[in-house]
């Protein structure tokens, strides 16, 4: 019986192609947009995560909160404390940064001036383009030397080499620093803006530049092969138990990737839910066309009843017809959604990630729409009086 009903439904659809197509449009667009949103949402997540992963997952940065009373805990010894108490940490680098005006003759630039230790570049795989990064000795003797990020170097010394020249850094008063190296370009890593920075020895920063009461941030290099996300969690747990949850913020590319996934996931679910409303509108279109179909086929219903079709059988026939209709709409919608996703993904250069679960969901949901909105017309058909239906012209 089910097969016969499907067969009848397909016949009825083919008999009036244009009408079928128009009445299906709501479902097609609804399903199409849901599929496109879910597919693109997932593709976006994948692309963002990939970008983050490529930037390097191995660093974690801790920013103490200046306003917290416990901020005094974050001193230079804290680097060793952290290393001792949390597993899988290779190095902890203290960093102090502030923004300052950097000037050479008439050229000036706003840059982030960071006081870092001599191992900073090596630990973060940050390559020197020209010259040499400052040494432990430079740091211990608080020499007034500077290493320029690629952007700063290009801005201040557009036509010549920066190494061997002097720059002035203004912070309350101008101080002069010898440029000893220029770094290679390195992609920003969400928490570390490499290229727009000027690096000076850590002790120089504290002695000559500004005297901080605590360390501005700690950059942690995770041991090779360790799970950055797990280390990040362990650091958080440790800090929570020692200085409290409010005294710091922690950033790791791994946790950022996780956050990005969750944000795009929530966003695309939300958008898909809105798009699903158009399925409701499409369902009303289906109800309308089914009512028309029942009215047009009153005579046929009468004949079928005279031949022994029970109300249930008639109901089944029309519900099946509605379901076949909406399922067809759903399948066309999937095709539409995938096509849109493909075009958009190509345009913005995302890697297309097709979710087959969403196909099943869309097909199932559109069939459900058919049952729901086909029910009333089918019920009406099943309740027709056989004599009146037979005499209907």
């Amino acid at each position, binding site marked *: *019986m089910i097969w*016969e009903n499907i067969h009848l439904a397909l*016949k*009825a659809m083919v*008999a009036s192609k244009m009408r079928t197509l128009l009445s299906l449009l709501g479902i097609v667009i609804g399903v199409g947009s849901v599929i496109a949103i879910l597919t693109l949402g997932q593709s976006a997540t994948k692309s963002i995560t990939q970008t983050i992963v490529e930037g390097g997952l191995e660093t974690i940065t801790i920013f103490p909160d200046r306003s917290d009373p416990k901020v005094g805990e974050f001193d230079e010894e804290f680097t060793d404390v952290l290393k001792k108490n949390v597993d899988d940490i290779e190095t902890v680098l203290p960093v102090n940064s502030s923004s300052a005006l950097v000037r050479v003759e008439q050229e000036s630039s706003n840059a982030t001036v960071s006081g870092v230790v001599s191992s900073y570049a090596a630990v973060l795989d940050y390559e020197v383009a020209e010259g040499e990064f400052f040494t432990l000795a430079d740091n211990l003797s608080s020499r007034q030397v500077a290493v320029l990020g690629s952007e700063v170097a290009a801005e201040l010394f557009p036509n010549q080499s920066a190494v061997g020249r002097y720059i002035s850094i203004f912070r309350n008063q101008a101080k002069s620093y010898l440029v000893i190296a220029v770094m290679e370009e390195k992609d920003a890593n969400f928490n570390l803006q490499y290229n727009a920075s000027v690096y000076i020895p850590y002790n120089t920063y504290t002695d000559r530049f500004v005297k901080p009461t605590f360390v501005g941030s700690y950059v942690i290099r995770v041991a090779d092969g360790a799970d950055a996300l797990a280390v990040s969690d362990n650091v958080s747990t440790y800090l929570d138990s020692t200085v409290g949850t409010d005294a710091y913020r922690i950033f790791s590319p791994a946790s950022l990737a996780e956050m990005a996934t969750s944000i795009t996931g929530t966003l695309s679910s939300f958008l898909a839910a809105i798009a699903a409303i158009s399925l409701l509108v499409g369902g009303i279109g289906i109800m309308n066309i089914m009512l028309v179909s029942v009215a047009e086929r009153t*005579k*046929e219903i*009468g*004949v*079928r*009843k*005279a*031949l*022994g*079709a*029970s*109300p*249930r*059988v008639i109901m089944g026939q029309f519900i099946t017809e509605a379901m076949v209709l909406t399922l067809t709409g759903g399948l066309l919608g999937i095709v539409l959604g995938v096509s849109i996703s493909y075009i958009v993904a190509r345009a913005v250069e995302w890697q297309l990630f097709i979710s087959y679960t969403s196909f099943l969901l869309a097909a199932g949901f559109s069939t459900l729409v058919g049952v729901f909105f086909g029910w009333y017309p089918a019920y009406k058909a099943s309740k027709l009086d*056989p*004599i009146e239906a*037979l005499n209907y012209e």
Partner: protein
Amino acid sequence: MKPVIELEDVRRYYTMGEIIVKALDGVTLTISRGDFVSITGPSGSGKSTLMNLIGCLDTPTDGYIHIDGEMTLGMDEKDLAYVRNQKVGFVFQQFNLLAKMSALDNVATPLLYTGVPYRERREIAMSALKKVGLADRMKHRPNELSGGQKQRVAIARSLVNNPSILLADEPTGALDTHTGAQILELFEELHSEGRTVVLVTHDTDIARHAKRQIHVRDGRIGEAG
């Protein structure tokens, strides 16, 4: 032998606003198995109401109707559908074939509602079409058939469930005299094979083909011939 159709003081009243229309007002009638009966009467006589009641398309307001042992009083639509499917073979004036289906599928439709499997349905429908002389028209749709052929398809359809009664409502009404005569011959042939045929018509010439003639007037019946 138990009669195949039994009506006992059957009344069918309709209310139209405040007025009660007594379409049938106390009809008692028995039709025995294998009989060939005509029911005649002018329009508005209650002829159609009587036919609908015998065909189980309707139930009486009062009185008892037995169709091959089934009492239809108080039956719901589902049970009535079952009786129609099993006990009654309908033949209509306008053929009432399903336009989008082949002759074979049309004939097989009642079997679908009986729950007969596909292959068997086709076999039964094929032999029914052979019986009415349309073995070569199985794949044709109704619009590719002549009036006489359509009515033969309809008769084949009425036979597939081997019903207790063939109920024909003006079966020649849409046909020319010659074709109509052939259809009547077919009914006579079916009658001679032992089937119970009830022929509803307004035409007394056609009614004369039947062995027994029942006349309906003002909601009551009388016999003639």
